[in-house]
């Protein structure tokens, strides 16, 4: 069957799609929690303040079954109370702020099989982006990963988060330009 075409998420998704605690994947107080953060930039190098990012990843043991509860609803008053603080759902959704900045707090993904290099899958939406873009966040540049191995070093670096002094991992998304992020398609 022919697919339904994509259209831009537009500028007005902010009151509908991002929810409280959307970036808080890691259970509260979990000792292994890591912060991953960065900016989204356009082709002029300006921050993109109206992007929406989604993250999907394996749990720390490499499991890809996921868990419900990423957008938990309060059945009494219809509010969004956030996650239950215990279950690891594998999914996060955050909007960039007025600076074009975003952050998530998660548990490092495990390897999904022998010899597999762990990564977080990222889906990028924005006003002006007619069709979403997929990319990945790796934590190390490893030749064991077929995608990383297939890219020349400069482009490969756009997929690898860099550890910062404060303990966070930084990775920026460049939609266009000299430092353009590697974007993916799947078959």
């Amino acid at each position, binding site marked *: 069957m022919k*697919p*339904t075409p994509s259209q831009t998420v537009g500028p007005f998704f902010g009151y509908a799609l991002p929810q409280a605690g959307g970036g808080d994947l890691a259970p509260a107080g979990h000792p292994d929690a890591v912060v991953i953060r960065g900016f989204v930039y356009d*082709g*002029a190098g300006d921050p993109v303040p109206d992007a929406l990012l989604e993250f999907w990843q394996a749990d720390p043991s490499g499991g*890809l079954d996921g868990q419900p509860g990423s*957008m938990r609803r309060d059945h009494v008053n219809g509010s969004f109370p956030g996650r239950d603080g215990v279950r690891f759902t594998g999914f996060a959704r955050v909007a960039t702020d007025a600076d074009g900045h975003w952050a998530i707090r998660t548990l490092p993904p495990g390897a999904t099989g022998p010899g597999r290099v762990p990564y977080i899958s990222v889906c990028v939406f924005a006003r002006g982006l007619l069709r979403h873009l997929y990319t990945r966040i790796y934590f190390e540049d490893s030749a064991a990963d077929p995608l990383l191995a297939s890219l020349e070093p400069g482009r490969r670096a756009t997929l690898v988060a860099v550890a910062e002094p404060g303990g966070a991992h930084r990775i920026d998304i460049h939609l266009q330009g000299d430092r353009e992020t590697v974007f*993916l398609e799947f078959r």
Partner: protein
Amino acid sequence: MPDTQADIDREIADISTAVAKAVAGGEPEPEQPLRDYKPYRSTVLRHPHQPLILTEQADTELRGPVFGVTDVTELDRDLTRHGLGEPLGERITLTGRVLDRDGRPVRRQLVEVWQANAAGRYAHHRDQHPAPLDPNFTGTGRCLTDDEGRYSFTTIKPGAYPWRNHLNAWRPAHIHFSIFGTAFAQRLVTQMYFPNDPLFRHDPIFNSVPSEAARQRMIATYDHDLSSPELSLGYRWDIVLDGPSATWMEEGR
């Protein structure tokens, strides 16, 4: 001087002619919008110049997040019941099925919608054009698909609204949809339109999908059997997700 509608119409026609020529010359008919589509000015600095990298070895992307009864309430599908009173406008019921490219239903996945009110205004700070907010309508809803992949919403028909792409730019009435498949690689965010909108030919977002047949797949059908006596008008719109589905997982789920 800001661009006029005539400028934009001309650009839309030129690209449409170029694509038709390419298709006549043997290129496949495009099923998706062009990411680099100048009539929609915001695309200019927001599309990659490098080709996308085809990734055969994907495991994470062939699975996807799951949602459940914790993530929706029964009231979420009825956007006319989120205030203290009735919203203004034409009440509609909207239903359809979410399918993968092989026509299989996408079961128990999350469908989210957001939209302007009957006057064409979003309940969003950035929408400040002079049309009234409706205290009884926030314009967001969600539901899980059933075992046949069916979703349904009760809402009001949104109004057209102005935007600043060019002088006198107006969006045709639409409802924004966000749909999850069984694979993250099937993710879809799109807009559903209403039949016979006179603004179609002037709208660069709608026309960013250069094939007429593909554009038709974004338009709902009026279905009288879905209308309810003295309550609402019915529309049907089926959704087909692009991308590889997690077929090999289907048995175990």
